């Protein structure tokens, strides 16, 4: 049954050095506040799993938290490269980064298999590509039609982490809008952490919402604004300007480290980080 705990405690108790950790959210509802807390608590040797490692993983990789990355598309959407991811792959800075890469369909099938407790998912892809020789797949033959298919191993992280709009006091989680692979990653992980915009006395049913019952979730933490610069549908918009700014902030190592030091390592928690960010924005307007 989900426990409702402060974010710092949840990260301390659920994520260990060396764990396989998936922070999911396909553009929407990215658990940035958890990424920052992992950096503050200096987790190391993580295998980071995520379809679209954007800013949140650029920060974790640049701060030396990751040993391996499992992913399908690593860029700053609509803006360009992830400079910290590139520096790790191209120059081993701050540490070498092992890669396991898939297509989106491959990762999605792996997550669905993880949630279903199947050993693998199947994809009609990879055929004829160099990807098939570089990644962790196997070819299987359909027993009914003889069709050749790619088997992608199930993704079963030690910890699955997502952000959602809200939960009730019992820890039932409600999430709507673009829902990505969030349901799959929570159901497929050994432990799970869901940060939410707010905890409400009672969840009003919403058509099309994803509901994760409290008994499928290990911990729920309140992190209002915790998806920024991603967004929480119905609460706040995507901060597209920040994605553009990140290109500058992260471009060189010193500028990146200085920003992370000031905004993440020297802030105690999400609230302090948000106050600092708002003060800076007010002073630059």
């Amino acid at each position, binding site marked *: 049954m989900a426990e409702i705990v402060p974010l710092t405690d949840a990260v301390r108790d659920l994520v260990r050095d060396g764990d396989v950790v998936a922070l999911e959210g396909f553009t929407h509802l990215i658990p940035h506040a958890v990424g920052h807390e992992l950096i503050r608590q200096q987790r190391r040797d993580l295998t980071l799993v995520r379809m679209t490692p954007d800013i949140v993983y650029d920060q974790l990789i640049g701060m030396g938290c990751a040993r391996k990355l499992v992913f399908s598309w690593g860029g700053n*959407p609509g803006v360009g490269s992830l400079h910290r991811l590139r520096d790790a792959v191209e120059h081993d800075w701050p540490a070498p980064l092992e890669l396991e890469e898939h297509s989106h369909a491959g990762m999605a099938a792996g997550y669905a298999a993880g949630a279903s407790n199947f050993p693998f998912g199947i994809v009609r892809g990879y055929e004829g590509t160099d990807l098939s020789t570089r990644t962790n797949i196997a070819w299987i033959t359909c027993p009914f039609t003889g069709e050749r298919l790619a088997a992608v191993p199930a993704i079963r992280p030690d910890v699955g982490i997502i952000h959602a709009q809200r939960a009730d006091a019992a820890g039932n989680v409600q999430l709507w809008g673009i829902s990505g692979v969030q349901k799959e990653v929570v159901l497929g992980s050994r432990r799970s952490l869901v940060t939410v915009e707010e905890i409400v006395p009672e969840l009003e049913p919403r058509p099309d919402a994803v509901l994760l019952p409290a008994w499928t979730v290990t911990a729920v933490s309140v992190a209002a604004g915790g998806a920024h610069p991603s967004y929480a549908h119905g609460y706040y918009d995507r901060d597209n300007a920040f994605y553009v700014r990140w290109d500058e902030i992260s471009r060189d190592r010193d500028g990146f480290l200085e920003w992370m030091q000031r905004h993440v390592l020297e802030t105690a928690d999400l609230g302090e980080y948000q106050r600092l960010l708002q003060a800076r924005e007010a002073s630059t307007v």
Partner: protein
Amino acid sequence: MTEAEAASYTADEMMAVAAARRLEDGAVCFVGIGLPSRAANLARATHAPNCVLIYESGAIGAKPRHLPLSIGDGELAETADAVVSVPEIFSYWLQGGRIDVGFLGAAQIDRHGNLNSTVIGEYERPKVRLPGAGGAPEIAAWCRETFVMLRQTPRTFVERLDFLTTVGQPSDSNAPSARGGGVGVTCVVTDLGVFEPDPETRELTMTELFPDVTADDAREAAGWNLRIAAAIQLVQPPAIDELEALRALKPANQQTVSS
């Protein structure tokens, strides 16, 4: 807009217009971000209002009023006919064979329409690490046909890809068409013109030239010995209504977008 204003358009605008013209009204289109999204939204704003735009974030039938910066901007979900999960969009909709046109970008292309979006240089120690496959391999294999947009230089039009991320045209041994899939890349739009596969050899052949571009310009901007169609067509420059619609497609809450 005056005719003089319409006469001054950028290469990117010509690309978007040429690609948009190729989308038929009513087509179900799986759209990548950047140049493809711009072209697909232009088509929807001009001659193809019934085009169904599908974004890999799960937005089906998105009708954005602004150009999205990412494939998962909130506006795509708000204006969509339906929003489904990522496993569902790739399994039921894409691999299920329900998409007419896939619309991709890439860093490199070869003469067979194969695409690289993974690395420049060696895989283990790349000169440039690119974002990776994303949805592209399955989009090219399972949409009925696929359009590609990329700027043409000897570094993007290469004899040999540094990495084959996405198969441009299914070969006989892996022909998805036999299983209900597509025919692969049928059209490549660059900043110099348009390429289509030769009906017999399947090699990409330049079939259309943009205004003020010569066949020699195109040859110089390619890393292989380009085939140019004997009856090459000259593309009409953007019409005033096309340019007006294109320039009205503004990004959501920021000033500039690099596509």
